[in-house]
């Protein structure tokens, strides 16, 4: 018996060994492929930063506008590539806020000058030169450190996969921690520079929210407000309780309410100041659609009217499964105020408003000094691209993407080219296109859920 078992066991052992070996090989192969991806991103990042640095240098020494423009275009492109490649290496455990900000600054600032000088074809101002000089100094530091890391990576064959498995996943330190420490050094060195101050118009901004009027409310009051709101909106409420408290841009209390005889809750956010219901989301299941959009819009309008939203125009309709999403903006003397949006979701089964969001309205709504447009409506329609079929035209205040607190009086021209629908916002004083919005619905596909 033994005579048989021993060779069989031995054979099995050999075979297991072979099996383990092939598995190991496969694993190694997989890790190598991942490593190659990381290495590519890293070396490209170094290359991007080198290019950024040399292009900045070229901008600084050149005196011909054309050459400067060329360098600035390259800068803009390389900065985007750098931030994308930085996102491709596994160093999420290192804080790189300032470094990322620097790369973003370079992209934004080069674009800013490009945009400005493209129209006027003029030389850099002294101020711009100084700013580019400052960016150059910072990029030099980043470049030097990156090159140091690169040389060590090449010399000692350091692995990013190892960084990912040991440092990122297990929170341990590597024996050779050059990569992690290198990036930490970059961040520290960039941090050590004084903060760069840019003029308005360089970075895209979100309009600063206005402070909300009213007195501070307590948690109990918030619960009371939510209870009253939902009692009125959805029938008797069985329970209302504090869910969370958040101190973001607008401090709010989150309250959860449950309707009598039901289990699925509704969430409301109530501003700590003034006690406004800023958002409401009901999480109920929605049955087959019974209403059309017109009826649903009427329901949304009724709801908003009840909550004191007057003079509102519907500007956008969206759909979701058995739900219609309506976006309204308030008007003042017939001018649409685009900053002050209110969104409502209407369930198409029974027409109930199941979600409501007035964050923008609360943040930005105020009385405007309505100006008169310098250009007449007929002139605008006359100068339109002949392929563009105008369907509707209205006046609107549109917030600037770059200047704080600036709103531009525009003609809002809705129309289409073939089947593509657009909204053109045309500056009502200069006649230039201020913003072009293409109205597209994201394509929906069949998907599986569990």
């Amino acid at each position, binding site marked *: *018996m*033994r005579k048989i*078992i021993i060779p*069989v*066991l031995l054979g*099995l052992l050999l075979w297991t060994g072979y*099996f383990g070996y092939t598995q190991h090989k496969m694993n190694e192969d997989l890790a190598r492929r991942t490593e190659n991806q*990381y290495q590519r991103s890293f070396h490209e990042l170094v290359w991007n930063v080198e290019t950024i640095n040399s292009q900045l240098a070229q901008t600084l020494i050149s005196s011909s506008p054309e050459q400067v423009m060329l360098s600035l275009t390259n800068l803009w492109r390389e900065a985007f590539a750098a*931030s*994308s490649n930085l*996102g*491709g*290496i596994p*160093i*999420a*455990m*290192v*804080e790189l806020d300032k470094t*990322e*900000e620097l790369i*973003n600054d370079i992209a*934004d600032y080069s674009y800013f000058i490009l945009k400005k000088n493209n129209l006027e074809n003029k030389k850099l101002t002294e101020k711009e030169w100084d700013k580019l000089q400052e960016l150059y100094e910072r990029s030099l530091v980043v470049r030097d450190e990156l090159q140091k890391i690169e040389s060590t990576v090449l010399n000692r064959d350091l692995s990013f996969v190892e960084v*990912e498995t040991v440092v*990122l*996943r*297990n*929170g341990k330190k590597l024996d050779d921690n050059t990569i992690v420490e290198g990036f930490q050094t970059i961040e520290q060195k960039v941090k050590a520079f004084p903060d760069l101050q840019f003029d308005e118009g360089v970075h*895209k901004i979100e309009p600063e929210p206005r402070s909300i009027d009213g007195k501070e409310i307590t948690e109990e009051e918030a619960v009371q407000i939510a209870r009253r709101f939902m009692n009125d909106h959805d029938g008797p409420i069985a329970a209302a309780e504090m*869910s*969370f*408290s*958040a*101190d*973001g*841009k*607008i401090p709010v209390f*989150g309250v*959860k309410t449950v309707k009598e005889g039901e289990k699925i809750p509704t*969430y409301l*956010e109530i501003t700590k100041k003034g006690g406004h219901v800023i*958002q409401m*989301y009901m*999480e109920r299941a929605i049955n087959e659609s019974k209403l059309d959009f017109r009826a649903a819009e009427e329901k949304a309008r009724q709801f908003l009217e009840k909550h004191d939203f007057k003079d509102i125009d519907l500007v956008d309709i*969206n759909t*979701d*499964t058995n739900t219609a*999403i309506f976006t309204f903006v308030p008007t003042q003397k017939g001018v649409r105020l685009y900053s002050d949006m209110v*969104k409502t*979701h209407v369930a198409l089964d029974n027409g109930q408003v199941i*979600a409501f*969001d007035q964050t923008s309205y609360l943040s930005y709504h105020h009385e405007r000094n309505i100006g008169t447009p310098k250009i007449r409506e007929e002139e605008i329609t006359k100068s339109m691209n002949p392929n563009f079929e105008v369907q509707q035209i209205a006046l609107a205040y549109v917030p600037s993407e770059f200047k704080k607190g600036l709103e531009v009086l525009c003609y809002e021209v809705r129309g289409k080219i073939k089947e593509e629908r657009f909204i053109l916002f045309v500056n009502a004083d200069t006649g230039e296109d201020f913003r072009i919005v293409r109205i597209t619905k*994201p*394509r*929906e*596909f*069949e*998907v*599986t*859920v*569990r």
Partner: protein
Amino acid sequence: MRDKLLVKTLTVVLLLTIFIVMAGMDFFSVIDNRTLLYGTTGQDVQELQIKLKDLGYYTGEADGIFDLETHSAVKWFQKRFCLRNDGVVDTLTWAMLNIIGPGQAFAQNSTTSSNDVYILAKMITGEARGEPYIGQVAVGAVIMNRVKSSKFPNSVYAVCFQPGAFDAVRDGQYYLPPTSTALKAARAAISGWDPTNGALYYWNPATATSKWIWSRRILLRIGKHVFGI
């Protein structure tokens, strides 16, 4: 006498080991079923088609030809049962096909969604399946806030797939079908609902490995997660 018992036990253990190891290897395909892929024909393909049809994954003819329709049915089946969905019917797929009865395992539903929403729903499922609904929306909102932020990549996909940014991508939970709740939460987040009011990070205080995450300013706490900027 004792020797005999020993030999017997050893034999049993040996047979068992062989069986288990073989099950792990592709030996079944040699012994039982061969590996089927696009273009294969034969009795076993027909058998496969009948099985898929019974389970509701295949609607075409059981003609024994592994065509595109069969291929996509196999992929769908594999995806649903967390197999590598390459459309190749290997041992594991055969095994799963034999185990599963109609309507078993993951209850499935189909609906429609845009790709961005679907990606977000998968992330939410992988990251926050056990969380309350609002906590799931909050996770989606953090991803959307990152898309808008200049410090992070500019698309939903690029944000989700930053190396090391999300556990669900690392451990593969992203590659499972999302729950319908997560899909709803994803829609809410994409339509602009942000319960966190601008948070860019979240972490689970119980399991967070990285210490620097605590240097972030905490905005709020929902369920198991802490949200911050």
